[in-house]
């Protein structure tokens, strides 16, 4: 089986689900890596790894869909809720832009108290008042929420957002696109078809998006292959996905922690990156996340098919709520890529190259090494989970 798959991968043939499942279950780690590199260098022949200088703030933590893998959300009436006004967010974006941020990945809870106008206003004013920043706003769940609140159809919501300047949306909220699993971990978030439906409509309108996967909870190997398979099929329709981004479930402070107390390991992460690179022959990029898996595992993932190192994440609150904190800086991101043996290149949200950095060169953006984290409770780091590398203490 391995030999026939290797031949097919070398020929650029598409693997079947059965072949994908076989690889995931039987191929050794380095056989996976070898096949993944074959595809990686066919699609991205340069020994280059891209990154984006971005921030991941949240406008509200009030959310009504109660996902059991999430430690971030609060209910209306809880003591520590917040919802920022558009003014407040614009002020923060401006400050970010001053520090050299190029992209804001903005998401929030699904908060029925917020009118559709708020979201449109957020996009419109960002485009007008902070043109340095590319808005990469609103996950599929929020878009469905806007449709519910406004009474507009999803295509109409997307059309109106596009009109005010939105042209890319993040790929979060996919979790595992297998309803068997989705029902258990995020019953109120909708089905796989809902996520895929929003993405399809967005791609049809010309949006670019990413696709994510969150693994390491209740899914089985078959569910992972199912997930890869449905996003590959959708990609064939409009080629709207720029990149695929897997990350592992972080159990800290979540209801699911009781069932799944530990992180998926680094080895599993590398398998996830590699199988995706091999299977997703129509995805231009695979993103490794130093942020969710640790810097060293992130570096290693670059040899397992990933060609992008994600963002520098000036602000991030969701993993931080699960006591999972990695800090870095633009300089360190560049150093990590370089010391892994690649040429660092800054990109836009849409994966256009802004600049490559030669030896000893760094982007002009000078960020502090620590994120400006407003809501982070980074007290106990890695309390019950000894095997993942924790925050850098030095």
């Amino acid at each position, binding site marked *: 089986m391995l030999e026939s798959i290797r031949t097919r991968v070398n020929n650029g043939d598409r693997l079947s689900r059965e072949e994908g499942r076989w690889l995931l279950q*039987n191929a050794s780690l380095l056989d996976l890596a*070898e096949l993944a590199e074959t595809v990686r260098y066919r699609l991205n022949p340069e020994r280059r790894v891209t990154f984006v200088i971005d921030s991941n703030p949240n406008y509200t933590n009030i959310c009504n869909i109660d996902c059991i893998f999430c430690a971030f959300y609060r209910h209306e009436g809880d003591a520590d809720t917040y919802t920022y006004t558009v003014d407040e967010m614009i002020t923060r974006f401006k400050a970010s832009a001053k520090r050299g941020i190029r992209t804001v990945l903005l998401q929030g809870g699904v908060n029925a108290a917020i009118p559709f106008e708020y979201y449109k206003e957020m996009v419109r004013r960002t485009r007008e008042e902070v043109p340095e920043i590319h808005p990469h706003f609103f996950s599929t769940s929020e878009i469905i929420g806007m449709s519910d609140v406004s009474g507009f159809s999803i295509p109409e919501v997307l059309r109106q957002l596009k009109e005010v300047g939105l042209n890319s949306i993040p790929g979060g909220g996919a979790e595992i696109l297998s309803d068997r699993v989705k029902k258990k971990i995020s019953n109120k978030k909708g089905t796989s078809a809902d996520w895929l439906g929003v993405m399809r409509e967005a791609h049809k309108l010309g949006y670019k998006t990413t696709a994510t996967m969150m693994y390491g909870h209740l899914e089985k190997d078959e569910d992972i292959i199912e997930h890869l398979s449905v996003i590959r099929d959708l990609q064939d329709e409009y080629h709207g996905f720029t990149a695929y981004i897997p990350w592992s479930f972080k159990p800290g402070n979540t209801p699911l922690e009781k069932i799944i107390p530990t992180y998926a390991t*680094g080895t*599993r992460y590398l398998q996830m990156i590699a199988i995706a690179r091999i299977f997703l022959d129509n995805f231009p990029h695979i993103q490794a996340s130093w942020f969710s898996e640790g810097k060293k595992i992130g570096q290693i993932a670059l040899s397992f098919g990933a060609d992008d190192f994600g963002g520098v994440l000036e602000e991030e609150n969701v993993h931080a709520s699960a006591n999972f904190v990695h800090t870095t800086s633009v300089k360190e991101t560049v150093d990590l890529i370089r010391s*892994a043996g690649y040429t660092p290149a800054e990109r836009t949200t849409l994966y256009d190259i802004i600049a490559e950095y030669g030896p000893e060169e760094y982007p002009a953006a000078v960020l502090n090494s620590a994120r400006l984290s407003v809501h982070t409770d980074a007290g106990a780091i890695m309390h019950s989970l000894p095997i993942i590398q924790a925050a850098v203490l*030095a």
Partner: protein
Amino acid sequence: MISSKAFTFRDNSLSPIWDKVRNGVRLTKEDGLALYASDDLIGLGRMANEVARSKSGDSVYFVLNRKLEPTNVCVLSCKFCDFAVKAGSKEAYEMTLDEMLSKLRPDLHEVHITAGLHPSWPWEFYIDMVREIKTQFPNVDVKAFTAVEIDYFSKKFKKSHEQVLRELYAAGLRTMPGGGAEVFSERVRKELFKQKIGAKTWFDVHKTAHKMGINSNVTMLYGHIETIEERIEHMLRVRECQDETNGFLSFIPLAFQPGNTGIKTRNDFTSAIDDLKTIAVSRLMLDNVPHIKAYWVMLTAEVATIALNFGADDMDGTVGEERIAHDAGAISPMELAKGKLISIIHEAGKLPVERDVWYNPIEIYPAKGTTVVSKMPYLNSVPFYHEFAPALKNIEVAPLMPSVLGRFARLGTVSAGPLSLRDFMSVSDRFDRLEYGIAVKGNAHSVLLFSKYGWSDLKGKRIGITSESSTSIELLRILLEKRHGVHEYEFVKLHPAQIQNNLSDYDAVLLIGDEALRNGELGGIPGFDQMYDLAGEWCSWKELPFVFAVWAIAKDVPAEAKTQITHSLENSLVSSAGHYAEIGREHGKRLGMDDAAVDAYLQTFRYRFGIDEHAAMAEFEMEWESLKRNNRTVPVGHSIAA
């Protein structure tokens, strides 16, 4: 041949190096530099993983161990260490012997002792330390004192290295840690630790230790100011020493952690790519060092896990206290319980093997649904494994000596392998026999009794028995009692680490496998005038072949796995037939055998069984049963060294 796999690489420059490696040709310094210069990390990993598999199968070893650091008071001030303090400092501590003993538990197998160079502790204190631990915890082996400490003792107490080591040996010291090696470069030494011993002294201490039966490890501290060339030179010096003494058990690359040491490195931590490359390059360069350790405390558990697929076959252990690394900001947790180690090794797709300090397997922990196949680590078994590569991920291979395989087959943790005939008989209700095995008609050259006396004069004598053996012990009994009428003799088990035995204490010694072969090729063991080939003795007596081992698979192994194992064995035997010199070349070289000798040796064996072999097995069973009926079996005692 180390591997039958012809890899293709993304980086073509690796191909000629792989050709050398898989044919057992030693790599040069230039090869080492080329490996480091390559950007094909996965290619390096595949080569190193294949080499590790040829040595250890899928096994990854760990030991239940604990570190003792009796004091942090040190007369040196090395730049890279922020553990040591001066006497009188408020952080200084000194343990009493009782405090040290209170930290140990009888279920440990190793205690790793290193300490600061204390200005005033007397020599007797160190001797007492080793002796008391060995006395109170006989199962705990003491791995103590780096070369730096030994040299310090030598100077302070005005004894030669040899004298220091001899006294520690007498107190019970059997292994030494590999610390203090840092990087064997005068340039680096002068820059970072000029008060510390240099390479010459370090090797002098270790060679002296090896020669008297103390095994040791060797480390390399990388990721500070050393160059890649200095790393390769470091490895070459280790390889050269190992050629001479064969006393190193493992090589341990240690990633430097700047912490508060004040040493300026390019990045805060070594890159993961550098960590993995260093593991892989070590495995490829150090062809004569049995094990490469992924020391998770320094490397982080996460990277260590990955390293298990890049050439490392050892995780170190459940080290309880790792003050040196911790004080410098190590990002690993303080203690990784045994269960955690096992799950990490499972995650890497490998087989956890709990070991003693000499890497003798104590227990194995296959993942659920895994079928463990034993690999007989002797030259005569190479034809079975030449192309043994079942496609199922859950079939894992572990190199096990015959006696160990027998034990694990009885426990049910190993499901297939060439079982020693006697062990097969004890589990034949749970195992199915295949028509493969190891038999010989005539001399086997690798089951030899080296004796100071003729057969009939062995009455009342003391016979050292290799602990690897299972069936051969019974064969020796049968020959002694049934053929030669010798009923009184004493069997004493030799220590499993060959280097530990002083053979001259025995009247005769039974060796098997590679050890027998090596000594036989050398013409015998000095002082032992007789050399009896037990298979030859049996064959000329019974006019039948002798069957040492029979391939068997546990009845509860799933059908698909059974089929794969059988097919894989058949493939190996078919493809190795007629190519014995080639497939056994690399292994033979380690035993000092040329192609012709390897070919002739392997030609003597019968790997497929026919009617003669079945008759031979029945005959052995009858003789053995009759011995047992007459209650003639003499128990096997243990040597003092064990």
